[in-house]
């Protein structure tokens, strides 16, 4: 059985078409060279089905040219997994570090205006009162410095409380972002499934979905399970966010206990529920120690009139601490004396001695916050470096290199030219056959 004369024409045409498609893909890559999240694509060429001819003497297969089998996204799934794991750590580290930096700003230590220096001034004022307990001016100074110390405590506690509220707002906003990402992943899922069912390759939709997933990983610990026809099941913190084309709206109650372990959401929740309340509790302990010990000593002392002292501070903790109104109005009521004599400042001296219990407790709180913030900053630095490195590696795999695209452009252009040359060679051959043969007798 003979092979058709026109087979060569068809083969050359396939070459022309395939090179054209490859050129199209290259042009698409170049056009998207600076598109965020774009994955470099490649037209995968493969020989088309061979023509089997069974001549008795020469059995064999004849090549019939080339076909584009697939438009492939150049993506390393393993890099995606690595990058997303680090993105999750980065999201968590960023939220923690941001929160703690604000705590540090509120703390304002070491400085000449923080609570530590207010404490120093307060102790010095007691010593001054002990030096001249008869003097109303020193007592006035003491009462004023105690009032500004109390205000310092209240302000710091108030700022911490504001940070808790901010963390709460952030949790809500982050959840809203996660939900909106989930909804978009679900709706993209529908389009992707449609395209895949129809046998086409929705590369750009897949890119968009991958980008959404990248962002989702920043927010929490995410698992992604692929199903048939590109359907994805996405869970966030142990709760199902997307199931195929259906997105759920998550609230804080959706997460199973211990489900949310990493990412921005988990970090914000830890900040809100553990870290900040812990600092507030520590500050509260410092303040309540100051209140109770001062009041005990003060009540056992005597004021300028020789009468027993009342409460020096009112309130129970950092949020309510204040100097007793009676003392503010008449500082003569400060019980500086241990015996009731106006010249005796022994009680004031023992009150000044309270600094040995209060100062170290406060300094410990500052150290704790500092160490936490330092740790968070270090984690953030690490995560940034890793994410940068992995993003660069992914970019080197999936990103568009203009040099490479230019080379491809040349390659496919030449391929196209050569296929066209093959076509004209065939044409000349057939022309020879048609116009020069069979002319015997003409």
């Amino acid at each position: 059985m003979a092979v058709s004369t026109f087979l060569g024409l068809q083969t050359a045409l396939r070459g022309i078409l395939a090179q054209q498609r490859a050129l199209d893909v290259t042009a698409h890559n170049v056009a998207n060279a600076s598109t965020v999240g774009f994955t470099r694509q490649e037209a995968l060429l493969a020989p088309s089905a061979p023509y089997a001819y069974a001549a008795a003497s020469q059995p064999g297969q004849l090549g019939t040219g080339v076909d584009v089998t697939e438009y492939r996204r150049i993506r390393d799934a393993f890099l995606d997994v690595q990058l997303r794991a680090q993105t999750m750590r980065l999201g968590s580290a960023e939220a923690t570090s941001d929160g703690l930096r604000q705590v540090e700003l509120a703390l304002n230590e070491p400085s000449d205006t923080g609570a530590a220096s207010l404490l120093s001034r307060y102790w010095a004022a007691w010593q001054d009162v002990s030096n001249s307990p008869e003097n109303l001016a020193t007592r006035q100074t003491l009462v004023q410095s105690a009032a500004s110390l109390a205000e310092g405590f209240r302000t710091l506690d108030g700022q911490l409380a504001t940070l808790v509220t901010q963390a709460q707002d952030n949790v809500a906003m982050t959840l809203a972002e996660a939900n909106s990402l989930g909804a978009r992943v679900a709706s993209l899922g529908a389009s992707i499934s449609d395209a895949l069912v129809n046998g086409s390759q929705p590369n750009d939709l897949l890119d968009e979905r991958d980008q959404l997933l990248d962002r989702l990983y920043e927010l929490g610990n995410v698992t992604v399970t692929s199903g048939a026809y590109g359907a994805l099941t996405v869970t966030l913190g142990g709760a199902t966010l997307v199931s195929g084309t259906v997105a759920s709206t998550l609230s804080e109650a959706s997460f199973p206990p211990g489900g949310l372990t990493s990412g921005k959401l988990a970090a914000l929740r830890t900040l809100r529920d553990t870290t900040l309340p812990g600092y507030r509790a520590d500050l509260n302990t410092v303040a309540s120690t100051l209140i109770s010990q001062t009041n005990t000593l003060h009540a056992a002392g005597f004021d300028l009139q020789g009468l027993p002292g009342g409460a020096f501070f009112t309130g129970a903790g950092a949020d309510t601490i204040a100097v007793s109104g009676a003392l503010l109005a008449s500082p003569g009521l400060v019980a500086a004396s241990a015996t009731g004599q106006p010249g005796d400042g022994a009680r004031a001296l023992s009150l000044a001695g309270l600094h040995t219990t209060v100062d170290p407790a406060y300094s410990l709180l500052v150290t704790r916050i500092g160490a936490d913030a330092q740790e968070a900053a270090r984690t953030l630095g690490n995560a940034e470096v890793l994410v940068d490195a992995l993003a660069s590696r992914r970019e080197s795999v999936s990103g568009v290199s203009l040099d490479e695209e230019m080379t491809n452009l040349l390659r496919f252009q030449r391929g196209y030219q050569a296929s066209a040359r093959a076509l004209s060679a065939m044409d000349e051959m057939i022309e020879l056959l048609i116009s020069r043969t069979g002319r015997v007798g003409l």
Partner: protein
Amino acid sequence: MLSRSLLADLAATTGRLARIQDKLSSGKELQRPSDDPFGASRALQLRAGLAENRQHQRNATEAAAWQTVADTALSQVGDLTLRARELLLRGANGTLGTVARQSIAVEIDQLAEAVKAEANAEYGGRYVFAGSATLTRPYAAGLSDAYAGNTQTIVREIGPGITLDVNQAGSAVVGDGSTGLLKALRDIAAHLRADDVTALQGPDLQAIDAAHDMLTNARAVVGARTNRLETAIARLGAIEESSQLLLSETEDADMAKVLIDFSTQQAVYQSALKAGAQIIQPSLMDFLR
């Protein structure tokens, strides 16, 4: 990819520049506790220690001023006592006439009043010889020599946990109506008026010598305290200086180092920009026809 790492590197360099800029403008190595948590807590301790130290210096200076007032008063009383002893010796002379003794008695009474006036010495509105009843005048003018103060001590803290008594009770220094210098003076005046030469030569002389010993003792106490305070002030000053140095080492930026870091980072930043500008520009397109 190149542009990405270039951007990351530039951002890192500007971050470092900003940190150095912070240090330069504040002069502080420690901006936040997280810069060095241990250093920050050390800085807090040093600051608290410094404030305490300065307060102790104030306390010691104040106590020293108190001692000066007390010493001046005691020295005056000492002079008055010596004068009284002189008068006593003159009055005890058996050849002296009654009228002369009467006039000596008058002067002795005046001396007693002067002693009480000195014992009412004040420092900053407080009576220094009244015990802790510093607002009560210890001795009233006139014939009554009763001591209105008390014998409680007043203390000053001049170091962590180190206290010093600053006062002495008037009754222990010049006595009251029944003991001490004042009693001796009143006895002398009475005996002079009564021409009791025996008493004047015997018990009165002993009494005034004993009172003078009491005074000398009180001045010795004041002197010893002044010495202790001066030592304490010098020591506190030295401690302040070294704590200040330590605080500065912990907290302050080493300007020479920071400035060198600054110019290094600036050079790094400029070369990164320059290299970036040259690397990013060319592509294969420049070389294809």
